[in-house]
C-alpha cells in the first residue's frame, strides 16, 4: 500500500515541484506578513487588527546564514537510531520583498561547503522522514542554478 503524503505541519506550504510555496498570512489592515502563519490576530502592535488571509511567500531568497547538525537531534525530531547519523545543513534565508528570514533544512546533498552568505536559493518540496503509513513532507532550501 502506498504511503500517504502528509505535511509535517498543516497549512505552512503547498504545491508540487513546479509551484511549491511557503504559505504565510497577511493582515488586511496593515499588510504585515507572518510566517509561520498567524491566524488569530495581527501581531503588529500599531495595528488594530484586520483579517488575516493566506499569502504565498516569495519562492527565492538569499542565504542570511547557514550551519549544519553534526549530531543527532533529540526527539521530537524523528530519526532511525539503527542508522549512522548523517549530518544535514540548515539555511536561514532572507526573502527580499517580505524582509523576513525563514529557516529550513537544505535539500539532500547540499552541504555547508556548497553554501555562501548572500547566495540565491529557492524553496522546494522535501521529505522529512517516512514511516510505514506516511511520507512526512516539508520544505527545503536549494541553491538556484544547480
Amino acid at each position, binding site marked *: 500500500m502506498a504511503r500517504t503524503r502528509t505535511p*509535517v*505541519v498543516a497549512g505552512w506550504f503547498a504545491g508540487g515541484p513546479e509551484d511549491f510555496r511557503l504559505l504565510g498570512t497577511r493582515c488586511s489592515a*496593515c*499588510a*504585515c*506578513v*507572518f*510566517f*509561520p502563519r498567524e491566524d488569530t490576530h495581527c*501581531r*503588529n*502592535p*500599531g495595528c488594530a487588527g484586520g483579517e488575516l488571509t493566506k499569502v504565498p511567500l516569495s519562492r527565492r531568497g538569499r542565504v*542570511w*546564514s*547557514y*550551519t*549544519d*547538525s*553534526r*549530531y543527532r*537531534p*533529540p*526527539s*521530537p*525530531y*524523528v530519526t532511525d537510531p539503527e542508522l549512522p547519523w548523517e549530518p*544535514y545543513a*540548515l539555511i*536561514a534565508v532572507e526573502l527580499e*520583498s*517580505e*524582509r*523576513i*528570514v*525563514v*529557516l*529550513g*533544512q537544505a535539500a539532500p546533498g547540499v552541504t*555547508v561547503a556548497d553554501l*555562501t*552568505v*548572500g547566495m540565491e536559493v529557492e524553496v522546494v518540496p522535501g521529505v*522529512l522522514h517516512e514511516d510505514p503509513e506516511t511520507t512526512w513532507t*516539508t520544505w527545503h532550501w536549494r541553491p538556484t542554478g544547480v
Partner: protein
Amino acid sequence: MTDDVAVLGAGMHPWGKWGRGFVEYGAVAARAALADAGLDWRDIGSIVGADTVRGGYPGYVAGATFAKALGWQGARVTSVYAACASGAQAVSTARAQILAGLADVVLVVGADAAPKGFFRPADGDRPDDPDWLRFRVLGATNPVYFGLFARRRMAEHGDTPEDFAQVKVKNAAMGSLNPYARYRSRVTAEEVAASAVVADPLRLLDICATSDGGAALVLSSMEFARRNAPPDPVRIRAVSTVTPRYPQTVLDLPDIATDSAAVVAPASDPFRASIARSAYEEAGIGPEDLSLAEVYDLSTALELQWYEDLGLCAGGEGAKLLREGATGPGGRIPVNTSGGLASFGEAVPAQAIAQVCELTWQLRGAAGERQIPGARVGISANQGLFGHGSAVIAVR
C-alpha cells in the same frame, strides 16, 4: 532613576554534573548567601525562586520548594520563569518588592539539574509550541542557532574561527581561577580547533555545556542595610527585563522565522542592544563607566556580539576588541571574569544570579586571584528563549 537596593549576601553551589537534585544545589547556595549576609533565614521577609522546567512540579514552584527545604518560616513567596533570564527576573522581582516597601530583605534562589546532551522540549505532541516545532520540523537544537549567528558574523564582520577560539582561551583562563566553575583547566586555541564540529562553524569547545548548579543573593533596602550590614554594600542600580519590539528582525530561539520588516521599520537598536540601553538609562551611566561585564557566552561568537550590544565597541568590532586584549584581565573592560558560561556550562535559572554573584565579589574586592583592581561598576547581560533578556548594573 530608581533607588538602589543593597546586595547583602551572595552564595553558590559549585557547577558540575553532580547527579543530585536541584533543591539541594539551591539550598546550599541559599545558606551560603545567608551566611555571607550574616542573617538568619528567619530574618527573611520574602523568597523569590527562579523556576526550572527540569525538576517536575517542585521546579515550577521553585520559591516554595526552596522555602520548604530551608524550613517554612512564613515568608512571602514568589516563583518566576523567564527561560535563561529566569534568575534576572527573580532579582527584578525581589528588587521591586523592596522598592515598593513590601519587604525589607529578600532571598533570591535559582538552581538546576541538567540532563546529559542537548536541551530538548517537553514531551508530548504539541504543534502549537514553537519550541516543539523547531525540533520536530527542523531538528534545530540550540547549537544550530549559535552556528547560524557565528557564520553570519564571519560573513558580515570578518570574524574567524580563530577569533572565536580566543574567547574560549580567555574565559577558560579566568575560570581556572574560580572555585565555583565546572571547568577549571586552561584551554589552548589548538585544543578548540581540534574539538569536534557541532554546528558549523562552531566546535564543541565553542559551545557552552549544560550543568548542575545553584546561586543565591540576599537583597535588601538601603535602610535595612544601614541598620543591619557593614557600611558601603554593593548596590544594584538597574535591572532591565525589556522585551523585543516588533518587528523582531534577528532570528531568535526557538523561532523558525523572523518578523517581516517590510511594512513596519525595525527599531534602531536590535533586541540585545535595547536590553543594555534600558539598563544604562535606568542607572544613569554608560558603557564608558564600566569596570567589568559578565555576558551570556552561550557560544564564543555570542560573546563578541555582546561586546557590541553593550556598547563596549562599535558594531562589527567585537573581534578587534578581543584581539586588542581589552576584554581580558588587565584590559580596559574585562569580560567574564568568572570564566563565563564557557567555564560553568549553563544551569539555566541559576546562571543570571551567578552573574550577579560575580559582580558582587568583584565590586567588594573579594574575587581572589581573578580580582579586577578597583572595580566600581559592573554589568551582567543575558538572553533567553521566547523574547527574554536581562541586564543588571551593580555599583559600589
